[in-house]
């Protein structure tokens, strides 16, 4: 059976089906992250002690900068340089994945392979740095059940990391075995890269909001 509208646009929506499907998926993702972000705002505004590191933890890990009232706030315990580098890595990967799509539109499959390969390397670099960050937390015996802030921090960043892993699986398939579609159905393959890119940009978009909300404020 031939799947309809994988290349050409449906007359009623003006979109090929895969693109509409991915946007519907992204809309559900907005609600998923939105609900968690809303929980973070609720906890942060509702509990005056939410952002304050308990005294016994400060003593155990030591050396954090003190706030205006002498208390230590959780962002001071997070690794801002790593998160900053990770932000730049994700932004660069957003450029490289859109470059891979543009390369296909210019009929340059070699460049596509290059840019998609760099995107994958960026994704692995992000996860590697995230792993270093998590390892530092675990070394200090900071786990999701240690404090409410850490529960939200690990949930939001962990869910985001799972999305990065999902992106790696899809992009690696399209870079590797899935790329043979380019020889038989180049337009359909180009569309696949476009919608994989839409997902990847969304992953970047979520991090753009997580970075200041968790690490800087």
């Amino acid at each position: 059976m031939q799947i309809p509208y994988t290349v050409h646009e449906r007359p009623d929506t003006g979109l090929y089906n895969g693109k509409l499907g991915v946007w519907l998926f992204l809309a559900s993702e907005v609600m998923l992250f939105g609900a968690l972000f809303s929980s973070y705002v609720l906890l942060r505004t509702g509990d005056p002690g939410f952002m304050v590191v308990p005294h016994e933890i400060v003593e155990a890990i030591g050396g954090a900068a003190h706030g205006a009232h002498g208390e230590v706030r959780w962002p001071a315990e997070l690794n801002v340089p790593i998160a900053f580098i990770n932000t730049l890595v994700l932004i660069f990967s957003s450029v490289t994945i859109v470059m891979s799509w543009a390369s296909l539109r210019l009929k340059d499959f070699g460049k596509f392979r290059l840019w998609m390969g760099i995107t994958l390397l960026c994704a692995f670099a992000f996860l590697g740095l995230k792993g270093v960050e998590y390892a530092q937390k675990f070394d200090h015996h900071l786990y999701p059940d240690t404090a409410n802030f850490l529960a939200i921090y690990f949930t939001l960043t962990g869910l985001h990391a799972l999305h990065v892993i999902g992106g790696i699986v899809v992009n690696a398939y399209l870079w590797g075995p899935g790329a043979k579609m380019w020889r038989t159905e180049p337009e359909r393959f180009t569309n696949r890269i476009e919608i994989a890119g839409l997902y990847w940009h969304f992953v970047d978009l979520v991090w753009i909001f997580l970075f200041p909300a968790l690490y800087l404020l």
Partner: protein
Amino acid sequence: MSGHTAEEIKGEIRRYWLVGFALFLLTLVTVGVSYLHLSIGLAVFVALLIACLKGGLVAAVFMHLISERQAIYSLLLLTVLFFAIVMLGPIGGRLGSIGIEGG
């Protein structure tokens, strides 16, 4: 939606790099502002303003929302509506609890 001639696509590529560079600069600004020791209200406002600007650039240029089909806009309008409800929930909850404490 997007240009189809090679020249138009090359023009788009220049725009992608320009936006990538703008996002890089805005990230530097975000981190720089966090060292200014602003009041928490102002810090939240500035950080979220920059994040919205960066998110807007990603959505508009990388996700092509600047020139998308009506169906996508309609879908996103509904998403924004529900997202606003989810985000306004905590504010409503806070106002409610203040009312209870006041009463």
